[in-house]
């Protein structure tokens, strides 16, 4: 087990205080939603930890969308989430998630907010440099590597995978992600990876209205222009359940209160940011461990 780092905890506390101050300055309400939930997620590749008759949440997304639908237009939550089978330098099965929602905002607005929060956190740690963020698209990054995602087949992306998404992610990890060393927002993901984001079909390639933020080469945050149509939400849940079944896993239970709330959700952008990772990247640590209290 790693040693507990008092200095690491001090740095972490500075970042947490800066983040909360930023949200207070920008009119956000801090909420605390239940950690123990009846449905832990929709996404097929998340492994929730069961707990009595429910699960430990993998993110506060379902509950926060109910909060927004109930009439709170700017909310955030900062608290623990749990994902089984995730353990490594940049992953822990328990980790701290910062998630926020803003009614009427677009993805560009959330990029501006991430830039502001990262700058505030860096300043709280005494760092004086300014971060210069690039804003680009998934398809642009692949085309820089000689691949057109709109037409690429599974075998063009990877020789070892049978599904398009698996081939995409192997190529991403092999060739694209390692190049993302400078701060960057990557938007317009393949429609098959929309999760809970809206899909735009008016271009020559259907894309999920999502972005991921990379800082110091680490995936820091994931944002959605939130899906807010009940029928579309039910279809996504059914597709995710089918994927779960195809990989030999039990589908996640459906959270009926969440599905009902999606139908009443105004146009909203939402984002989840890994706080452990933010602290670690800004402190220059090799992983998230120095900012955490080792117990296992």
């Amino acid at each position, binding site marked *: 087990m790693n040693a507990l780092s008092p200095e690491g905890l001090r740095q972490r506390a500075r970042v947490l205080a800066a983040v909360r101050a930023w949200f207070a300055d920008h009119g956000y309400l801090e909420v605390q939603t239940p950690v123990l939930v009846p449905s832990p997620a929709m996404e097929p590749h998340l492994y929730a930890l069961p707990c009595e008759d429910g699960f430990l949440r993998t993110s506060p997304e379902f509950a926060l969308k109910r909060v927004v639908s109930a009439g709170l237009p700017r909310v955030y939550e900062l608290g623990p989430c749990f994902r089984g089978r995730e353990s490594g330098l940049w992953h822990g099965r328990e980790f701290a998630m910062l998630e926020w929602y803003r009614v009427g905002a677009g993805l560009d607005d959330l990029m501006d907010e991430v830039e502001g929060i990262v700058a505030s956190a860096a300043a709280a740690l005494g760092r004086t440099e300014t971060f210069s963020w690039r804003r680009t698209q998934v398809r642009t990054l692949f085309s820089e590597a000689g691949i057109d995602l709109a037409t690429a087949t599974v075998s063009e992306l990877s020789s070892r995978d049978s599904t398009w998404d*698996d081939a995409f992610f192997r190529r*991403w990890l092999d060739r694209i992600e390692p190049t993302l060393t400078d701060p960057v927002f990557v938007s317009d993901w393949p429609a098959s990876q929309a999760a809970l984001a809206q899909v735009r079909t008016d271009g020559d390639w259907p894309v999920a209205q999502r972005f991921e933020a990379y800082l110091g080469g680490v995936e820091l945050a*994931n944002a959605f222009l939130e899906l807010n149509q009940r029928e579309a939400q039910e279809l996504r849940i059914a597709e995710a359940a089918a994927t779960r079944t195809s990989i030999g896993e039990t589908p996640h239970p459906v959270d009926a209160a969440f599905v009902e709330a999606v139908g009443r959700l105004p146009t909203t952008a939402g984002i989840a940011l890994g706080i452990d990772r933010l602290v670690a990247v800004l402190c220059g640590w090799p992983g998230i461990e120095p900012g955490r209290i080792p117990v296992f």
Partner: protein
Amino acid sequence: MAYQIPSDIRNGLKVEMEGYPWEIVYFQFVKPGKGTAFTRMKFKNLINGRVNEGNYRTGETLEPADIETLEMQYLYNDGENFLFMNQESFEQIPVSQAAMGESKNFLVDEMMCRVIVYKGTPVSVELPTFVELQITYTEPGVRGNTAQGTNKQAILSTGASVGVPLFIDQGEWIRIDTRTGEYVERVKK
């Protein structure tokens, strides 16, 4: 039995890929936000030392390499091969010049080494991390110059050449780190 990803993966595991034996020297869990989990690994080629890396999806497998590591004692060079003796079976095996590679620079008689055998053929030899060797030639030492930089060349009893500090004299013994091939310190004999 094939090795399962990620449950069987650990550093030091020897796997077969592209017709070569590789040793896993680094592994890390990685998972793109919306995708399946992968394990990022670095592999060292046990024949040519090249390092490769790749991402392997959870559920994929790696084939074990037919490789064994034998503790053996170096006996002599017969002009073509280096002969080693297995300390348990007393069997002698020849190791080719190519398989010895850079290791021959610091090899001395009776040295205990680890011989890596792939599909029955020795493919490389690991020396002890530190070896002590005598200098057979170097320019005369400069007394009083205790600078630690390696500022001149010295020829060792094995014929290999290494950089040493100016204060080192011909006939002295020095310790070498065989991983880097570099001078570590003077040894009193």
